[in-house]
């Protein structure tokens, strides 16, 4: 079964998917400063995956992105989030132990109106990355699972 879509869809996908992925990662990265965050950014990246999968079908995957890998990454994202929450348990669950510590993302936030300092937020950026990883891989693996089901049905 030819599960690709028309040439218009494929051409537009080639142009836009890279931009979408970059924007998604931007949203995740600046999650502690601007609107958005791990979930939103992950959803945007996943929508780029969705675009690729719908336009090119599973043939475009070429075995590089099987859903076992994606599921493993999803578990890693979830465990990283939970691990970060557990890490603060010296004070309380979810306590932000990196904030203002001077380590990575441990910068102090200047008082008053400012454009936002990327090097701040403590564990929050890491949590955003963990959630983003979970959301993008999770949604992508759902789509791949659906498409594989479709291919199997066509083969029967």
């Amino acid at each position: 079964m030819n599960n690709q879509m028309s040439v218009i869809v494929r051409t537009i996908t080639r142009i836009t998917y890279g931009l979408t992925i970059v924007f998604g990662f931007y949203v995740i990265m600046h999650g502690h400063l601007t609107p958005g965050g791990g979930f939103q950014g992950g959803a945007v990246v996943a929508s780029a995956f969705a675009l690729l999968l719908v336009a090119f079908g599973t043939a475009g995957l070429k075995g590089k992105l099987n859903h076992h890998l994606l599921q493993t990454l999803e578990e890693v994202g979830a465990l990283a989030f939970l691990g970060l929450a557990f890490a603060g348990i010296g004070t309380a669950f979810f306590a932000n132990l990196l904030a203002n510590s001077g380590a990575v993302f441990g910068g102090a936030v200047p008082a008053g109106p400012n454009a936002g300092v990327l090097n701040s937020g403590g564990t929050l950026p890491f949590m955003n990355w963990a959630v983003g990883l979970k959301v993008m891989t999770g949604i992508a693996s759902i789509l791949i699972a659906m498409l594989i089901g479709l291919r199997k049905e066509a083969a029967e």
Partner: protein
Amino acid sequence: MNALTTHAPILIIATPLLGAFAAPLIGKLGWTVRTAFAGAIAALTGCFAGLLAATLYTGGGAPIVYVLGGRLPLPSGLAAPIRIMLEVDGLSAFMALITALVAVVAVLYSVSYWKERSGGALYDSLLFLLIAGVFGLVLTGDMFNFFVFLEITSVAACGLIGFRTWRKRSSEAAFKVMALYTLSGLFVLLAVGLLYGQYGGLNIAYLATNLGGTMVDRVALALLIAGLAMKAGAVPMHMWAPEAYGEAPAPVSMVLVANSQASLYALFRVLFTLYGQSLSAAAVGWILIVLALLTIFVGVTMALVQKDLKRLIAFGAVSQIGYMLLAVGVGFAVLATRPDFGLTAITGGIFHMINDVACIGLLFLAAGAAIRASGSRDLHSMGGLAHSLKGTTVLFAVGAFALAGVPPFNGFASKLLIYESTFQLSPVLAVIAVLASIVLLAVFVRAFQAVFLGPRLIARPEPVPWPMVASMVVLAAVVIGFGLFPGFFIDKIVTPAANALWSGQGDYIRAVMGG
């Protein structure tokens, strides 16, 4: 030890969540590792729940507050507590104990329930997610987090009900349950949104101090009652329950009963702690009583004519939800006038929760063993299993007698409290409850006769593996222990829970708001 006690409320939720997230990864290491991991997570969760309950009961029943991501006391100068909070009082701790019992038993039972040894990691994952959700429901002190946990339980429950994808009816039941759980969740969200819009806060204690009985509060209460009663499975919104309990794997049916009870807990929490006497309590109490009588009556009579063993037990489970609703409805109806029997009714209703989960759980597990052994769930074609499955037979009989309220098992102790207290409000209620109990006994005599007695109709039933028997024995021990020493258990764990509802609103609010 001290640190563990402090963090016990969140650890109870976080440990099964860790189990849920790690199970698929651990599952790649093989069956033994996976099973050991699941057992360890369940045992740890049970320990934390026991620790929390012990801390609470030795501390005189004062509510324990746990703040996520920060320390107590809250920053001063805030009009409303804006932190994410867990608040544990006697009732929450009691529900946590029930959930812990169910979790440990379900995991132990599941070890050998699945004949095939692959794919179980996903099952473990969903089961732990459901358990974490139920724990969250009963421990949270915040309306929005309550909704979040409600959705977690919904999603996990649907995954588990439809887990046997190769059976068409499972998928159908999962779809229906998904739709109805989502609907009830959305109405709860709508109610939470109404309250938030009016008072600008989501903390239960904060809302309870501000609720004034305006029209918006009333609409929110109606949405909460309808949504939560549907998730608990009250007639006439019970139709999903027989399908869900019937199609789910046996241990999941038991956890789903605990999930329904958590919704019931939430309903009680909303009524007694959130609204208290700010509304006309008698009218709300009578709504609950009418729903309860319908639930008891329809549940029992429908159970009488079922031809499918698990659906029969499922209708029995539906009817038992009615007894708890009845008792607490009676308690709420007389909350303003406060006669003595109100507290007795609530005590009976809450005591019946743990009794019900033990008996119904035992029945579901025994039925699961019988169905697994005979390969059929049709009452007509089963029969004579007592010849080969002696242990399961005895355990099923214990569960059936206990559920029908036959002395000296635990069902009788709690039903006695319910009968005697509802009789004080209106003799009709008690008469219907007693009659339904008798019919329920008839129902289970029929099921027992059909499945276990008679000549061998199943040529070579499969033996029941020991972990399944062990998990049933645990529940049977609870059934008999609570039946023989009801006074002890009511004193130790039920009375603090009942008091938390009956007179605990002030303490619950003070623990967060101070003053």
